[in-house]
């Protein structure tokens, strides 16, 4: 029955070279374990350095494997696809992890929870995200999702390793637990959805689903029903991961309780992984899910509804938040809504690629901006965890002018003001929505942007227009944190001012 393949066949079929960035990073984490083990107490800074080195190597590998000229390749027996989409998101994930590592070291040391495992877990998680963006099979989607999520559960609870019974440790533990339970719950949805899709189509490979689904949906059969239910469950499962309404309930608590660098990291990587899988499954796999006398995919209506709910709830609830981390948590829900606008637009076949490109640029812009904003929030936080309220930013422009300027640019970028990366992303997404004929969605999108301006601008108001009362916050503005902020700032501005840069980077992306 099973013929054991020859080595040559195995190598050709698995095509490991194409998966190099992700596999290299995963292998590097094993090395990192050893480094951490033997480095000892006084050389504990070796682990973060080695982690950065690994990220750099993986980035180099990514550049070589995904040069624009390279053709699309499949690897791992067709379960992994190495195309421009994968390459671009790999780079985004690596930069995100790099910024997160830079942010983490001094924060963890100050909180007395500095352990080498932190970096190992972060790298495993980003390797998981990198597998997820290249997943060409529902099984890989699931495995990569777990690889991405499980380290994040631990990281969210990372503060509880210093078991002093403090409020912070408890909150962190709660955060990890909540994330774990809801994550497991959503994985179950995902797996059940995948099983139903498999039942209907007889395959888990996304391109094959594409070939079969079209004929199924045309016929009135139970297979069509299972397929539709399966797709719905897949959307629910991934919707939990990317935190769109109504699957967002866990976000604020988890974001608030987790150590701030972890919050920053997971608000970016988990979303990128989740949206990448969602785009692949819906566009590559299920764009043929078109009912009779309709031109758009069935799931467009669902995606539109989710996007509208997410935009409205995320932005309006963010207004009432006084805690910066919670505010950014709701704002990240809102940004998931904007990416969802692109997903919805991709339901119209002609502009599926344009919408995907918009989503990718948006994710990149969001990555730089959100990490930067979290880095600033992290550095004004006090050791006891207080100081993260919006009023604690008062007078920051006087005490820390550079940081305040950076934060202002991040806030403008999140609002979507021109000359920042956020605008480029919003512009591409709304273009796609308009092109797809989703005017209502586009109008709601821009109107909620105005709502978001209200709470983002409040941050700027507090930094520049109000004066500080009481003692100054001893900001954690070390060399590495500043570097993290600068990298994020550079990304936000460069991609915002040199508009063609972003569009050229994604111009090769085509997954429809």
């Amino acid at each position: 029955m099973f013929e054991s393949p020859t080595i040559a066949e195995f190598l050709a079929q698995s095509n490991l070279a194409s998966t190099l960035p992700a596999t290299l990073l995963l292998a590097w984490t094993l090395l990192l374990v050893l480094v951490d083990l033997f480095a000892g107490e006084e050389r504990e800074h070796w682990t973060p350095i080695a982690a950065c080195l690994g990220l750099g190597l993986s980035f180099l590998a990514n550049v070589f494997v995904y040069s624009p000229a390279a053709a699309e390749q499949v690897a791992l027996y067709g379960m992994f696809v190495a195309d421009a989409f994968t390459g671009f998101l790999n780079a985004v994930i690596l930069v995100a992890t790099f910024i997160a590592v830079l942010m983490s070291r001094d924060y963890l040391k100050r909180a007395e929870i500095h352990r080498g495992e932190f970096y190992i877990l972060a790298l495993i998680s980003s390797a998981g995200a990198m597998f997820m963006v290249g997943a060409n099979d529902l099984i890989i989607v699931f495995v990569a999702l777990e690889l991405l999520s499980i380290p994040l559960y631990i990281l969210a609870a990372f503060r509880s390793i210093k078991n002093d019974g403090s409020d912070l440790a408890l909150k962190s533990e709660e955060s990890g637990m909540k994330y774990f339970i809801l994550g497991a719950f959503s994985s179950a949805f995902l797996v059940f959805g995948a099983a139903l899709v498999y039942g209907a189509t007889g395959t888990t490979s996304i391109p094959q689903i594409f070939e079969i689904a079209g004929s199924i949906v045309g016929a009135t059969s139970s297979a069509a029903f299972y397929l539709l239910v399966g797709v719905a469950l897949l959307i629910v499962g991934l919707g939990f991961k990317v935190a769109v309404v109504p699957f967002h309930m866990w976000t604020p608590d988890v974001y608030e309780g987790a150590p701030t660098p972890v919050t920053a990291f997971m608000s970016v990587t988990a979303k990128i992984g989740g949206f990448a899988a969602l785009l692949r499954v819906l566009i590559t796999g299920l764009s043929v899910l078109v009912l009779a006398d309709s031109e758009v995919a069935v799931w467009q209506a669902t995606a539109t509804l989710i996007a509208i709910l997410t935009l409205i709830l995320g932005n309006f609830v963010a207004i009432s938040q006084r805690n910066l981390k919670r505010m950014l948590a709701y704002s990240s829900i809102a940004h998931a809504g904007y990416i969802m606008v692109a997903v919805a637009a991709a339901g119209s076949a002609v502009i599926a690629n344009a919408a995907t490109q918009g989503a990718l640029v948006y994710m990149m812009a969001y990555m730089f901006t959100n990490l930067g904003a979290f880095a600033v929030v992290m550095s004004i936080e006090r050791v006891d965890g207080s100081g993260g309220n919006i009023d604690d930013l008062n007078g920051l422009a006087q005490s820390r002018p550079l940081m305040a300027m950076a934060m202002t640019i991040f806030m403008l970028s999140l609002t979507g003001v021109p000359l920042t990366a956020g605008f480029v992303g919003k512009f591409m997404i709304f273009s796609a929505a308009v092109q797809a004929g989703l005017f209502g969605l586009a109008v709601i999108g821009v109107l909620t942007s105005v709502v978001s301006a209200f709470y983002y601008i409040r941050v700027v108001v507090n930094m520049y227009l109000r004066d500080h009362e009481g003692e100054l916050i001893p900001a954690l503005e070390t060399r590495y944190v500043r570097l993290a902020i600068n990298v994020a700032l550079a990304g936000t501005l460069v991609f915002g001012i040199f508009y063609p840069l972003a569009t050229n980077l994604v111009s090769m992306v085509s997954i429809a």
Partner: protein
Amino acid sequence: MDVTGLSLTTITLFLPIVGLAILLFMNGETHRGSLKWVAFATSIVTFVASVLMWINFDPGSAELQMVQRNTWAEITLGESVINVSYFVGVDGISMLLVLLTTFIMPIAILGSFGSHIFEERGREKLYYIFLMLLEWSMIGVFVVHDLIIFYVFWEVTLVPMYFLIGIWGSEDRIYAAVKFFLYTMAGSILMLIAILYVGNRSGTFSTYSAGGDVGVIERVQTFDGEGTYWDALGPEGEDTGFLLNSVESFLFLGFLIAFAIKVPIFPFHSWLPDAHVQAPTAGSVILAGVLLKMGTYGIVRFNLNLFPEATVAWAPTIAFLGVVGIIYGAWVSYAQDNVKKLVAYSSVSHLGFVVVGIFALNAQGLQGATLQMVNHGISTGGLFLIVGMLYERWHTKEMADYGGVWKAMPLFGAISLVISLSSMGLPGLNGFIGEFTILLGSLGSDYLGFAFTLFATLGVILAAVYLLKMFQHVFMGELRNPLSSEDGYTLAWYEKAAYIPIIIMVFWMGLQPIVFFNLLDVSVDKIVALFVR
């Protein structure tokens, strides 16, 4: 035609950025004394560059001049590729407004030379950086002809103005700044959707044709199918369900609301008094002088050119709002006890005239409207300078606290009288020319009735009422609150210097308006040709 070479427009546009870069590298503490000089010098050089543009400008040509167009990005959307390009150039209308911008800017900077706000709030370097950024973005709004880049400049003007009000404003500055930001952003972001639609459906974001590319305006105006261009491109067989039931009308409103908030057209004006009253003097001068004109300019440039049918359909409605603005603004202005608020509401009234002029949709109306934009910039800018200088000395904005200023400061009183009379529209001064031409235009309009002219004329009378009330309360009578030292009554050199160009312009435009009308003739005729019945 080669249009990718460096043009004078580009040079003028980016000169403020050069100043900004120099300021950025200066130390805010050790070089504190020279900050203002760098900003002032930059604004003067920019002004000289814009005058060079004027000299090079051929008023006989209806085409854009000093054009530069470089492709900036290509967006692939579905099957179409849409270019976003850096596309600058000027026609008569743009030229005049660029000149207004570069003219007001040095005056605004001079107006903040001796200001007390830096002693209180500091951050002088940041202040001048924001002024430079503001000048750059305002010139940008007037010279770019690519919708996306236009939107970028349009939005960027918000940021420096927001900080100018928010950091260096008076007591309620935060409220005013946030209100200003949100209000204008809400309007402009709707415009973004309309812009995206225009670009996606027509296939280009360039409004004019250049270098072989056909711009949207030409596509609209040479369209000879059934119905209108936009309806032909619109969603097939779908009932949009909006007013007048056409795509074009919907797009027209998308643009108009953004501009109406900026102008502001009644009933979108409520941010204006707050912003004006709280803003520092230079902020008020620029806000009244240039920023509000971005709205009226946008209506002329985009609404009229891109959506001629919708313009015709909406003209009476918008012009009616303009007339309401004229009377309402004047009425409310009369009721104010706060000098700055009085001048702020007078802007609502004066810009109502501009709106009526535009929607008269004939040559006189449009020429008058454009000239009135400039006139209002000069006169109201001057009035805000006066208010600012009064405030520097007496530290109050209440009219009741003033009185008899003329006795103490006769030169200042005389200057103020001239500027107030110019704002009132006294024949022989600049205000008269604009208002008179607008009224002439509205009278001869095919689209507006006699009633519009009648009620607009009322506004001229009301303007005299509130401005004379202000003048009487502040300058006439006995000196009510003498200053502690006699030195306070003398005008510093920079204060005098700020008024000289204003007074020159007030008389020049009043006595020799033909110079400015010449600039506009051909450009306006080109637009008006769309609306000849």
